[in-house]
């Protein structure tokens, strides 16, 4: 499968502070990629670099085969929803729709109108007076009406109640089901991401900790429980991501490369994606793990 996004040693520096450093990611076409990491890990910076709102300080970046720039030729294929759901509060949904038609080369007004009608969103009320969930749906409909090949969402569901969140993710999944769309979505809500995503990127301390499809990630990680062991060497192909120890027992979340052998005196358990993500998020200070 072809990569829609590819970065190599990507870095972004603000003054003397590197918000993003040596960031290598690859997002395959048609996937829904979850971008997770602690606050300040560089998620929003990465999304801004991908859409060309910021320029890289170092490294390479390719999005849909091009270098991101704020130019119609590049942006025509990209939908981007910034963190605070930017809409014009005094304008209603219909006015946003008209604006979409005027500002974009390609804009499916019929699609957006139908969508908002199906969701029973009042078209003639200023969007500032809609509920948070409705506003998010208007913004998503606006972004999808461009028929983008890539949709970048910065914490789209953070402020929504559980029902609005479900509705938003349902709309998003339906758009993905129609085909031809790749999504990168940052969020702290791991349970949601697990359902909706099939690919994951974990950032911590400005670096990529993990970038792979979720199925592979689940397959390659094991929780090993055994007698207390201080040294981290377990054997070839085994990398300890996170460890906890009691006086007699060690619990290790371990990446097990295909074909590697786990010592027989260790109990093996399958971690869920949330446990794996948390282990990698705690990794930030220890450098990049591959």
């Amino acid at each position, binding site marked *: 499968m072809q990569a829609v996004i590819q970065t190599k040693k990507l870095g972004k520096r603000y003054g003397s502070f590197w918000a993003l450093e040596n960031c290598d990611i690859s997002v395959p076409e048609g996937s829904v990629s979850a971008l997770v990491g602690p606050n300040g890990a560089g998620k929003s910076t990465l999304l801004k670099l991908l859409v060309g709102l910021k320029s890289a300080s170092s490294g390479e970046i390719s999005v849909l085969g091009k270098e991101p720039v704020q130019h119609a030729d590049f942006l025509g294929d990209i939908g981007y929803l910034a963190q605070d759901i930017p809409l014009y509060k005094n304008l209603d949904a219909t006015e946003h729709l008209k604006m979409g038609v005027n500002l974009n080369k390609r804009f499916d007004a019929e699609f957006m109108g139908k969508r908002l009608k199906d969701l029973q969103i009042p078209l003639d009320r200023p969007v500032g007076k809609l509920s948070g969930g409705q506003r998010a749906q208007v913004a998503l409909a606006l972004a999808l009406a461009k028929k983008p090949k890539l949709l970048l969402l910065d914490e789209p569901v953070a402020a929504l109640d559980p029902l609005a969140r479900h509705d938003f993710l*349902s709309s998003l*999944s339906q758009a*993905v*089901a129609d085909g031809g769309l790749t999504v990168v979505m940052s969020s702290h809500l791991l*349970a949601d991401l697990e359902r909706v995503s099939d690919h994951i990127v974990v950032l911590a301390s400005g670096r990529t900790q993990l970038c792979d499809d979720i199925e592979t990630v689940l397959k390659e990680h094991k929780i090993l429980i055994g007698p207390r062991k201080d040294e981290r060497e377990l054997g070839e192909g085994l990398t300890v991501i996170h460890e906890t120890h009691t006086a007699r027992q060690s619990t290790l979340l371990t990446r097990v490369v295909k074909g590697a052998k786990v010592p027989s005196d260790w109990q093996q358990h399958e971690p869920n994606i949330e446990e794996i993500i948390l282990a990698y998020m705690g990794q930030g200070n220890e450098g990049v793990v591959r």
Partner: protein
Amino acid sequence: MITFRLNTHSGVPPYLQIVQQVKQSLQVGILRPGDKLPTVKEVVAHVAINPNTVFKAYRELEMQGLVEGRTGSGTFVKKRPEGPSPEIHNALGKELDGWVTNAKKAGLDEEEIEALLRIALHKSKEG
């Protein structure tokens, strides 16, 4: 038409949960040969999951020979999985319902009921 429920904390991969639910529906006769499964878009609209999960589940069911995809018109049930008929499933289910009611009346909680069932299964395995 059937709907799917997904439990994200069960440890069972979501696609496998869909496979299991289709099979169960076939076992008890809720789904019959010729029935159409919900489209991928209908499923994701309802449960908000990644469409590839549903594609994968349907592919798995197709590989097991239980359903078939017809281009342009959807996925249809081809046959029931091997095994006892829906009538037998339903009759046994009813018997079990009665037993569970009795157990609850006697003051057992769900955990204890599950434990009893597990022990019984274990015993039957040992013959």
